[in-house]
């Protein structure tokens, strides 16, 4: 589903990724670990093609970094759900509107949007926060709303960039368990973290260790 072929993408100041070669299959749960600045976020950004490699090729389903055009990007991103450490919720909209926006953007039929949004809010246990604005939510609730938005569009892969960075340990563990549950239903998950404690909470996973822009080990 995702292939990196001799991919290098470096920045003038620091970091990046060098000579990455790997394949991630449908249904995989992959942890990217390593210290800050090792290249974990760069690797994720390469997958959703926020940046393109200097050398090599990234392939995600039918999209290749060598051929992708600006107008293809929204369609690629509708196959990718994303979670970030800072949640990236729109502060001026309530929980329902944040989740529904992703569906409108993905061109879902209007008749299905309300139903789908309700379903996701129920599933992520934030239905009672329907009218709340993000600043009225706890960190864990914000991340669950962000997860509801990411999953609403039925992505093939879920990319999570340090999603537990702003959460306390108990909520972090709950989130990882939730991600594993989502993975069990067929969605691939790629999660960047440097918290080994939460990695051990997932029964089955692949681990990519990144150091100084290189994947030093992978399972």
């Amino acid at each position, binding site marked *: 589903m995702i292939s990196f072929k001799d991919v290098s993408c470096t920045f003038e100041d620091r970091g990046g990724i060098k000579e990455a070669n790997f394949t991630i299959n449908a249904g995989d749960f992959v942890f990217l670990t390593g210290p800050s600045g090792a290249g974990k976020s760069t690797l994720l950004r390469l997958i959703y093609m926020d940046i393109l490699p200097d050398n090599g090729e990234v392939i995600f389903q039918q999209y290749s970094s060598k051929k992708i055009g600006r107008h293809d990007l*929204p369609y690629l*991103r*509708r196959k990718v759900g*994303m979670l970030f450490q800072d949640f*990236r919720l*729109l502060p001026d909209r309530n929980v329902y509107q944040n989740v529904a926006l*992703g569906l*409108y953007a993905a061109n879902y*039929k*209007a008749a299905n949007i309300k139903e789908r949004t309700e379903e996701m809010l129920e599933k992520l246990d934030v239905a009672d926060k329907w009218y709340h604005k993000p600043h009225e939510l706890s960190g864990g609730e914000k991340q669950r709303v962000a997860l509801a938005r990411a999953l609403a569009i039925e992505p093939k892969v879920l990319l999570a960039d340090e999603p537990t960075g702003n959460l306390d340990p108990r909520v972090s563990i709950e989130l990882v368990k939730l991600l594993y549950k989502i993975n069990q239903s067929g969605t691939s998950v790629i999660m960047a973290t440097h918290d080994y404690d939460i990695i051990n909470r997932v029964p089955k996973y692949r681990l990519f260790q990144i150091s100084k822009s290189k994947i030093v080990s992978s399972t």
Partner: protein
Amino acid sequence: MMVFWFLFKEGFHGLIRSKYAGAFTILIIWIAMIIVGLSFIGARDTLAAVNKIRSQFDIDIFMYKNATDQEIDDFHALLKSRDEVETIEFISPDMAAELFKDEFGEDILDVLEYNPLPPSFTISLKLNYRNSTSVESITTNFRKHSSVDEIRYRKQFLYLMEKYQRSIIIVILLIFLFLSVISVLLISHSIKMSIFSRREIVETMKLIGATDNFIRIPFLIEGFLEGLIASILSMVFIFVIAKLQNNYFKTVFDYNIILNVRFYLTMIVIGSSMGFMGSINAIKRFL
């Protein structure tokens, strides 16, 4: 259709959400529209005044004193046949003597014991022909008529009117151009500031798979609405100015400001377009 409705609502809500940045944009467009509106009224009325002065231009054609009735009738018929001629007034020697009396207070027959005044025609030309080239050509043609003695018109007046009208139009166009460029730049800049304050929203929209149009349309609608609100507010302001001038200051400035539906519609179209165009320009940077 539902998506468009959603985007329209997003644009409308964007206007409310943008708060101070949106209000600032409306203020800028409002000021620009007042300047444009008042300049437009000034330009329109200046040109109308110039045209009114030009409409008072006429040509006096003096016949020979001994011209026969038949010759005068023939020339009258010739004048009637010309498309360029708008009005014709025949002044017989008796009528000329009456005019002389009205003007100078003495009867010319008492002074000279005969009437030396010839029969004449006073004609005016249609607006399109009230220029030096046409007048020169028309009068040259009339002079060829055997019973025409002399033709008089204010040649210098015509020349000066043409010269000044051209200058006035050029100055008005330059002022308009200058104001329009400054207005669009200011509007575009204030909309850029408004969008800049929400750049993270644009970034998030991109990440969740929104197309450029999906992101762009609400901002365009927002810009259009800002322009619409600003143009309505500027219309109200100009309406109040016009009412004050027409009702209270007419004794100071003898000038009546006329505002019609066409003026209001033009203001709305220009204001909304400024907001819309400013948004197109501003959002480009963020996509």
